[in-house]
């Protein structure tokens, strides 16, 4: 009766959210008096999981599963649940994990709580605090089914090291043709860039930047901080930046440790999309901008003066703290 964790990987390496989910699962396992089994897809070195409380890893090595296929992955996870007699499956709340979550819930007839923002309030009954109303509220939700699924919000729990003696086991579930009825034909992803979903820090800019030609300094600031870049809705609507960078209620949610908003006034839909971020900084010429009410730190000033100065000072800071 273990807990099963789905660990996301890219190019054969675990993503940060895989280790965060493992950390979360370890905490729940302690409460339940059980152990954590992880499932990894095409990762040769699984040792990192042993640092975050995983006791056993089921290693799937399968050419067909090199890239993410929601239905095939969900079938494999469901098979692993059966094999391990797992009563709880834990995933992240990334785009791929949310794709899996609904499918798994239907396959396993398991109640599913996505966007969990903290460890369960209780494990018997299983009650979990989750984001609701686009971060304007939280629901404490009970799962009523025997098998349960929790999706942990990015950066909500953090990485907590717990060294365990990790056992590894090869796992080769049969995949069927029908699992691949929806085929991936092309992935268009900018290599090497930090994505909004994975980023600890997000640097975001709005109409105050006046035009797409002025984004160089935003990218430079993001580069210095190792951050992802994002933008407000009007900016993506005007085509200054891609839709993938649009942050807000109908865009991407951001749950970073630090969110820096430059030249963004702070419409309610935008604030809903960033409210899960831990620390918010706003830079805006208008002291009445609504974002100042939601931010932790602020500078009333012209982005074209403040941002270059901030980049210089950050470079000095990094040099001193290297």
């Amino acid at each position, binding site marked *: 009766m273990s807990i099963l964790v789905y660990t996301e990987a890219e190019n054969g390496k675990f993503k940060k959210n895989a280790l965060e989910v493992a950390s979360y699962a370890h905490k729940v396992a302690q409460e339940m008096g059980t152990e954590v089994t992880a499932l990894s897809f095409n990762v040769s070195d699984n040792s990192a999981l042993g640092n975050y409380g995983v006791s056993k890893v089921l290693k799937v090595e399968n050419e067909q599963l090199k890239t993410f296929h929601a239905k095939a992955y*969900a079938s494999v996870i469901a098979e692993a649940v059966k094999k391990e007699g797992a009563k709880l499956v834990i995933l992240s709340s990334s785009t791929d994990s949310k794709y899996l979550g*609904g499918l798994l819930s239907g396959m396993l007839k398991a109640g599913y709580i996505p966007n969990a923002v903290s460890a369960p309030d209780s494990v018997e009954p299983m009650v979990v605090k989750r984001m609701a109303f686009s971060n304007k509220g*939280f629901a404490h939700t009970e799962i009523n089914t025997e098998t349960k699924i929790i999706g942990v919000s990015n950066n909500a729990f953090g990485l907590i090291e717990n060294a365990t003696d990790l056992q590894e086991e090869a796992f080769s579930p049969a995949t069927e043709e029908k699992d691949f009825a929806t085929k991936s034909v092309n992935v268009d992803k900018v290599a090497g860039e930090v994505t909004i979903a994975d980023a600890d820090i997000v640097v975001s800019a709005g109409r105050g930047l006046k035009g797409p030609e002025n984004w160089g300094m935003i990218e430079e600031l993001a580069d210095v901080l190792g951050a992802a870049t994002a933008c407000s809705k009007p900016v993506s609507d005007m085509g200054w930046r891609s839709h993938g960078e649009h942050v807000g209620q109908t865009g991407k949610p951001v749950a970073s440790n*630090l969110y820096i908003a430059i030249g963004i006034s702070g419409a309610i839909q935008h604030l809903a999309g960033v409210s899960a971020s831990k620390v918010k900084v*706003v830079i805006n010429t208008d002291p009445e901008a609504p974002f100042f009410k939601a931010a932790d730190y602020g*500078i009333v000033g012209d982005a074209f003066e403040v941002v270059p100065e901030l980049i210089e000072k950050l470079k000095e800071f990094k040099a001193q703290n290297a």
Partner: protein
Amino acid sequence: MKILVCISNVPDTTSKINFTQDNTKFDTTGVQFVINPNDEFGLTRAMWFKEKQGATVHVATVGGPQVEPTMRKALAIGADEGIRINAEPTDGFFVAQQLAEVIKNGEYDLVIGGRESIDYNGGMVPGIIAAILNINFVNTCIGLEIEGEKVTAMREIDGGKEKLESTLPLIIGGQKGLVEESDLRIPNMRGIMMARKKQINVLEPAEALHATSDKTFDKPAQKGPVKLVDADNVGELIELLHNEAKVI
């Protein structure tokens, strides 16, 4: 082609969120309800298919009579017929089972749901339906073309997009990108008049599992006032982020 658009009746994006009855119920006082934005992108894409390729479009909602104004709006935009499953949409699993019954009986080629609703943000309904009915599924769908049985879909992934090929029948979890916001339709007077004559079929719910239940709600803690740093002293901001907030 026969299309079903599943719509959720949600508080509009600017609503103030409050809870009543000892924080066990969402307070609907003074709240304006609308079509869930992610579903509206899907509904507009369905209208596109109807007009360019020929399709019948039905809309379905799980909810009491109070959701009918939202359904009428969808009919005024151009959906042909409405289906209301007469039950409180208490949890995603329950809603998905009710919609799966409608889909099974209606023999739809394409089912469009939203990536998530902006109230409970579960985002699980299309996936559960896909699993129950064993049909193809694309989530976070930002582009959809259909030729005969062949489907080409684009989905958003973290840091980019992915092109997928599939076949009908298909269910998607749609979002902005399926159509642009500027393409969303405001019902005109003719549409509103016609919508009055269109049928909303009320179905009683099928027996179904309530997989989760919301016990209580709360709101984020009140935040302290913003700490302002002088524009001439940005070094102080770095100090604060390093020493006080400990985020750099």
